[in-house]
């Protein structure tokens, strides 16, 4: 009988709902595993840490966590190691130097999300142009990695630590002033920011968001993108966004976006249970385990998600 | 027939017995001075008559009918108006608005009724003129002088031509000249058949305008005499307790 905890960054983010569903699926399949899905209601770093602490205290049989604040989480996870509780990360990983604290990471290579998004942009605008990037919360590590991936892909050169430096013409791409936009994972802020930037810069070539928040608020996003539908259709402008939530797929199908790079949160949650069970039973597991990415464009939108 | 008659009014706040079986009556056209030391229960008695709170026991009779007041409006409807010790004005409203507070005049427009500014300001202006006060109805109370504020508070009692006007220390905080005006008003009220109860610490004021003086001590009435049958010295003695009763 195992109880494994799956700890998301925030429980009110639809992305993590899918992981939870995967986790419950695994629970059904594995007779001796209970999935305890618990995390902070909103995106707060400290609360997530406290929850993990309490889980260790409570003595669960394994923890899969998507750390909001990697270095801080690492410190807490030392206690898990002391208590002999198996630990793995998902969605976001620990810092390089702390990797010994978790057995494995299941999730995405975040850098690649940015890279693929940039490739989608490059495919539509081989000659470069102006671009605005939009990103998530305060100093979120995974978003910064995605930013770096996007920037380096566009620039064709190394740009240092995440999130890199704003592009000033490298590879033909220039980031406009006022960007990158910070959303703090707030859907409303994200849409408003995009709306204003597109209005202020009618000649903008591309808008690239490293998180689904841009498109969460389905109706609002549709309204914001609608005026640019034609430009997007005839290749003058491009909007690409990370993740492949249901509403995002539909929006792209409707021509209100040009590309998505999807992670597989369901699979992350699902696999996490199996991996934890393996660890608990002393089996060796791979490190890291990438769940893969779905790269969607207007062309393959009906078939891109597995 | 008394205009107002209080029978064995008692009021306790928890352990504090603010009033202990007070009887008092007043006829139309009469002014009664109510005196007593601090905490003797004067304001408490006035508030009971004004409907601020019910007595713990006892009866209030108006023109020989027993009444019960549950809120200030009840007393008002029975023809009782009060000028509170602290005036109770809203500084952020105009003088006119204060006069009509809680009983605004309205106009009807189809199903909507709305405040009738014109009528209210006009009427308030008339009242101030009557009181010989230079208060302008459209001025904010915020920056009015003590005398003007007093005029506003008194004007409120004139809205409804009440039978009985209660004044709780209306002269405590105002200047010599304004005191004279208030006393003149009380006289005019008497002349027009109103009953007035004047709560005051000022002996000369009471002796100038009142027909009778009642003295409370520790919640009990210790004297109720015609002005011409007593003297300031006696009343002082009654207040302090130097004289037991009279």
């Amino acid at each position, binding site marked *: 009988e195992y109880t494994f905890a799956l700890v998301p960054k925030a429980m009110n983010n639809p992305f993590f709902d899918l992981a939870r569903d995967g986790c419950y699926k695994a629970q059904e399949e594995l007779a001796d595993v209970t999935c305890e899905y618990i995390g902070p209601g909103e995106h707060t770093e400290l609360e997530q840490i406290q929850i993990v602490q309490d889980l260790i205290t409570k003595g669960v049989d394994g923890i899969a966590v998507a750390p909001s604040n990697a270095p801080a989480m690492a410190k807490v996870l030392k206690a898990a190691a002391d208590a002999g509780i198996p630990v793995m990360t998902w969605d976001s990983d620990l810092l390089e130097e702390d990797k010994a604290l978790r057995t494995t990471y299941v999730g995405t290579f975040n850098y690649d999300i940015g890279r693929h998004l940039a490739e989608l942009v490059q495919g539509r605008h081989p000659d470069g142009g102006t671009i605005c990037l939009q990103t998530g919360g305060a100093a979120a590590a995974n978003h910064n990695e995605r930013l770096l991936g996007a920037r380096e892909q566009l620039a064709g050169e190394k740009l240092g630590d995440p999130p890199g430096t704003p592009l000033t013409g490298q590879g033909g791409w220039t980031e406009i002033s006022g960007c*990158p936009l910070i959303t703090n994972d707030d859907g409303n802020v994200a849409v408003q920011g995009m709306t204003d930037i597109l*209005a*202020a810069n009618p000649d903008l070539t591309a808008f690239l968001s490293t998180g689904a928040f841009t498109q969460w608020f389905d109706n*609002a996003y549709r309204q914001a993108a609608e005026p640019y539908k034609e430009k997007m259709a005839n290749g003058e402008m491009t909007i690409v966004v990370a993740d492949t939530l249901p*509403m995002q797929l539909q929006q792209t199908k409707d021509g209100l976006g040009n590309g998505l790079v999807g992670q597989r949160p369901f699979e992350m949650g699902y696999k996490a249970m199996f991996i934890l069970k393996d660890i608990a039973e002393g089996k060796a597991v791979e490190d890291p385990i990438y769940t893969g990415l779905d790269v969607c464009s207007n062309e393959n939108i009906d078939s891109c998600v597995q | 027939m008394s205009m107002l008659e209080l029978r064995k009014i008692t009021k306790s706040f928890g352990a504090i017995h603010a009033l202990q079986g007070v009887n008092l009556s007043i006829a139309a056209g009469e002014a009664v001075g109510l005196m007593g030391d601090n905490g003797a229960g004067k304001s408490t008695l006035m508030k009971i008559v004004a409907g601020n709170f019910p007595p713990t026991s006892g009866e209030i009779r108006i023109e020989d009918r027993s009444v019960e007041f549950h809120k200030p409006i009840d007393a008002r409807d029975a023809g009782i108006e009060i000028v509170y010790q602290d005036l*109770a004005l809203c500084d952020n409203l105009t003088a006119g608005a204060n006069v009509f507070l*809680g009983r605004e005049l309205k106009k009807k427009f189809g199903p909507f009724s709305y405040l009738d500014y014109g009528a209210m300001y006009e009427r308030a202006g008339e009242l101030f003129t009557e009181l010989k006060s230079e208060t302008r109805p*459209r001025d*904010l109370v915020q920056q009015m002088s003590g005398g003007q504020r007093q005029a506003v508070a008194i004007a409120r009692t004139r809205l409804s031509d009440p039978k009985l006007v209660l004044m709780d220390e209306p002269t405590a905080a105002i200047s010599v000249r304004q005191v004279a005006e208030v006393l003149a008003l009380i006289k005019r009220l008497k002349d027009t058949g109103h009953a007035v109860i004047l709560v005051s610490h000022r002996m000369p004021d009471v002796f100038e305008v009142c027909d009778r003086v009642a003295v409370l001590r520790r919640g009990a009435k210790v004297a109720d005499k015609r002005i011409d049958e007593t003297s300031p010295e006696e009343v002082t003695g009654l207040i302090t307790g130097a004289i037991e009763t009279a």
Partner: protein
Amino acid sequence: MTDQTTDQELRRHPGRGPMDELDGMDHAAIDESITSRQEVSGIGAMLRTQPFWVFMAMIAIGIVMSFVSDAFMTERNMFNITRNFAFFGIMALGMSAVICTAGIDLSVGSLLGLCAITLGLTMQAGWGIEMGFLVCMATAAIVGLINGILIAYLRMAPFVVTLGMLAMARSIAMVLSDNKMIYEFGPDTDLFEWIGGESIIGVPNVVWVLIIMAAAFWWVWRYSTWGRWVIAIGGNAQAAKLAGIPVERMIVSVYMVCSMCTGLAAFMFIGYTGSATNGMGVTYELNVIAASVIGGANLMGGVVYALGAPIGAALVELIRNSLLLAGIPALWQQFFVGLFLILAVLLEQLRNRGGK
């Protein structure tokens, strides 16, 4: 300032009122020397209000911006700006009423989230838009009722009550939604999303709602007894009570009005966004309060302007939009919002002191 306020005011704004104003304000002002501050009507009165000056500031920003960015004066940008601030404007209308009674409502942000969820669940279950609207408004009314009863009858500090409600409402939203996002609204989805998100003759519907609400509040503050009584309570609750105004019931109604403005904003907002999460509205209470205060509401109570709330909300949105259009890094945005908030109140302060 009168005898009744000085001391307590000093406590809340220690240092307020130079020493020489401390006492002597009782009845000291002689009739003759009164520089009468009367309720001036028409333009004169308007010139003295904070909303007017904030409006002027907006015009100034607008003029500057129309040179800085071609995109600023476009119909589309105006459309976006007005739509964006309309939600906050509606909430701020209600908040202004609360602030007018010297209260505060910190729970509106959470309530937005809670309304989003109850509304979303109802419509998702196929109950239709009328039912959705009713449930949304009922949720708001109940929250307002609880706030109001605790404040008016149990005499608790509005700050504490609504802070507690902030936590509780958010928690209930989480529980009800089971932390899931709702983006399917049953049979009436189209109508629902049209109401919140579309426009009539080029003006977003939510802006129409704001206009109607502001006009209604303008009328209420000026011509209704309810409005008059709320203002009176803000000026001196004791006096209002003695004048026979049912103060407790009025207070309850004020908190209900505030909550129901939020409920209405939530209804429009969810229609506009097309999805409902329990995280909606986090920290909006601060924006709404800021909008009200910038629009001239005074936290000490007794002051209210129907146009203040929308104008305050508009200024905040204008700053945000302008900074972005002007290409100023988004990181600076909050800085200017905070600065303008402080400046607005500071100017009001100086203006008032000059007038005295």
